[in-house]
């Protein structure tokens, strides 16, 4: 004889009557779909920002910048300081014997109409600059020539600001043509225009660099490299691994959205939990005779409680799947801009799994009390219930 698992049988009985409770079941599904959908949509901003910033990071790259500015492009580094930095130990050298480093400058350009000041940046890079960008690739046109008044545009900036190859950008000393478009693993650099650092500095009448990006021989030499720079009395600089620097920058951009997403998610989740408890209590009431019958023919209180809990989890998971799919269809890979960072919203598979787990937890919180009540129903009285 086939032995049936009591909780499974109790669950099956419950599921068979779901059709009669379609309205209330739908409320749980919709409630959880709203919670998970909204939370994932908000978190897609954080995920997109983090993906963009981490795409450009490399732990064997280091950024050196002024100790006062505390960031790349802050207070300037004069040429003599850059010369000293390039002699620091640990910097990798190229086939020509020159250090693999790029002294860079970031200049803000007047953006297209409708965008705020500071949303479009031009990065002046050294001859090794493009080699230090992971995944750098010219996708249309050509690379700018060193010393020429030419620019190339990142794909994100191209689509956001409409800066096409062949167009030109007004600079202080005239119009500079955009001669190419590039990608760089979807990194922050794609939000910018690139040009030759020396030519950009000359046009902008700037004497100091904003920072120096260097390729280290290995990630392990960073500490020694940093110590040499920060203890050098001729310098007032600090160094940071590029990956750490970009992570810090990403957090600066995304902390608001992360906090906002969790705040909203928690508030909505509380509403959904109260709603689930109320609905499941009603379900217990509607199924009183059914529960009593199961108990009378030998099913234990644990099986009854499990069936209620499984039902809540089942409905919540349906809601979570619907909410995740809706959020993914609406927002995944949509381009967005935050300050000067152009990025694509992202709802990853991992986030969707997180949504399912969160929904299951909410279901347990919402279904536990009704499940206990169902398990503790007095059989003799319940079986006579109308």
């Amino acid at each position, binding site marked *: 004889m086939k032995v049936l698992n009591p909780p499974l049988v109790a669950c099956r009985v419950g599921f068979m009557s779901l059709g009669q409770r379609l309205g209330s079941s739908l409320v749980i599904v919709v409630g959880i779909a709203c919670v998970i959908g909204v939370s994932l949509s908000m978190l897609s901003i954080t995920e997109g920002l983090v993906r963009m910033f981490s795409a450009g990071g490399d732990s064997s790259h280091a950024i050196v910048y002024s100790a006062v500015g505390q960031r790349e492009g802050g207070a300037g580094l004069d040429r003599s300081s850059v010369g000293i930095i390039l002699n620091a130990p640990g910097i990798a050298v190229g086939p020509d014997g020159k250090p693999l480093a790029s002294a860079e400058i970031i200049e803000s350009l007047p953006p297209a109409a409708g965008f705020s000041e500071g949303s479009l940046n031009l990065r002046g890079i050294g001859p090794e600059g493009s080699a230090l960008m992971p995944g750098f690739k010219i996708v249309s046109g050509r690379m700018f020539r060193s010393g020429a008044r030419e620019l190339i545009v990142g794909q994100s900036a191209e689509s956001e600001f409409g800066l096409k190859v062949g167009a030109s950008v007004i600079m202080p000393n005239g119009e500079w043509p955009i001669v190419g478009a590039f990608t760089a693993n979807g990194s922050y650099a794609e939000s910018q225009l690139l040009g030759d650092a020396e030519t950009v500095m000359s046009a902008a009448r700037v004497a100091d660099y904003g920072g120096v990006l260097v390729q280290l021989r290995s990630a392990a030499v960073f500490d020694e490299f940093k110590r040499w720079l920060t203890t050098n009395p001729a310098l007032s600089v600090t160094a940071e691994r590029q990956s750490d620097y970009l992570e810090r920058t990403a957090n600066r951009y995304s902390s608001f959205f992360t906090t906002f997403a969790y705040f909203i998610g928690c508030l909505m989740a509380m509403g959904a939990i*109260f709603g689930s408890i109320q609905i499941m209590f009603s379900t217990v009431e509607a199924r009183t005779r059914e529960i009593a019958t199961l108990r009378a023919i030998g099913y234990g209180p644990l099986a009854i409680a499990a069936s209620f809990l499984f039902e809540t989890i089942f409905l919540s998971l349906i809601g979570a799947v619907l909410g995740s799919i809706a959020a993914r269809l609406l927002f995944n890979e949509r381009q967005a801009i*935050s300050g000067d960072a152009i990025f694509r919203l992202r709802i990853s598979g991992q986030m969707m799994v997180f949504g399912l787990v969160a929904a299951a937890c909410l279901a347990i919180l919402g279904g536990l009390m009704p499940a206990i009540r169902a398990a503790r129903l007095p059989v003799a009285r319940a079986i006579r219930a109308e």
Partner: protein
Amino acid sequence: MRCYTQAVGPLFRLGSRSGDVRMKYWPLVQSALLRRPAEASLTLLAVTCGFALFGFMIALNAAYWRVIDSARVDRIYVNSRFDDPNGLPIALEKKIEAIDGVTRAGAFRWVSGYHQDPRHFASVYTVDGGMRFGWSEFPLTASQWDELFASGTGIFATKKAAERWGLHRGDTFEISTKPQVREDRASGWTFHVLGIVPDDPEWDEGVLVGSYRYAENARSAATRGRVLGFRVAVRDPARAAAIARQIDQTFANSDTPTKSVTSRDNAEAQARSGIAIASLTWGVGIAGLFMIVFLTGNSIAQSVRRRIPEFATLKAIGFTDVRVMKLVLMEAAIPCCLGAAVGTGLAAAFVAVPRRYIPRGLLNVPHPAVSVATLEWALGSALLIAIAGAVLPIVRLRHLNVSVALGGRAP
């Protein structure tokens, strides 16, 4: 039928042809609402959470619009077109003031460095006399402006800035810069706090305001005579955009081209350039309401389904469909409106949380304020939700077969 008789009793005792109809209905509604206090409380809690979210979103949305709406329409920001680190010559101030329609122009320049530790970036926003007009919304009295320009090293700190640096009236505030910044090669700037003034919404983290003349006289001779930008007051707000274009045209072919934008356009561009918080708040708020509609609708539907015989009795003794509809609507509206009021109160409590307890990530948004308008929005939405939730049960009751329902059979 115990509850029914309890409820109907007062109806006949209190009611009269000329009596208050709402008073007659109240015992019925009350008994329906309080019959299952646990369920009613859970529904109320869920609705309250939904409206707390909705209220917060409305308040945040309003805060963004407040920033835009509060932007002066009679003011233009003039900056270097290409973000020139040397800024613009102070001489442009007189040329801008000579343009038809300009009232006055105020210049500004930062004294930037660090306070005590190189990691503690600090700056003082030094301004000249034209700022009395160009930045007239800054909460300084005429005598305080006089005091600022007369004192030289004096600064006024807004509340947030004073909190950040722990400043009080009479304190000194040191900023360290590179020695070459000052003519005397000193690396420190010592300012004296003249007073703490209310915050200006333009500065999220507060601002320290000093005198441009004093800072200029202390700078190295080679770097004097420059400003970072101007705030220009114009006579006719309707002409502000045209005057901004005229300013840019005037200096377009000069060594220092300008980029001029009205305060209002600047505020709108900033709101559009970031993630569209305003539309996000609506999206989230509507998702919250959507959840409440389903919950309330289900709750009312359940309540009506359980009390079909009672409604049949009411109809049998002469209650019209309209009266029954009013009863159901009130049953739906009361928890919704109560939840809206309590939820909006909770939202008000959230926004009243002192800044030091707010997660750092949320500090950069305009501070939301829950107003009477927020409550009105919430109550209006609550009524709409109640109507939406009550529609199906009302339709069901309209088609109720009284004899079948009274016979105890499913209608």
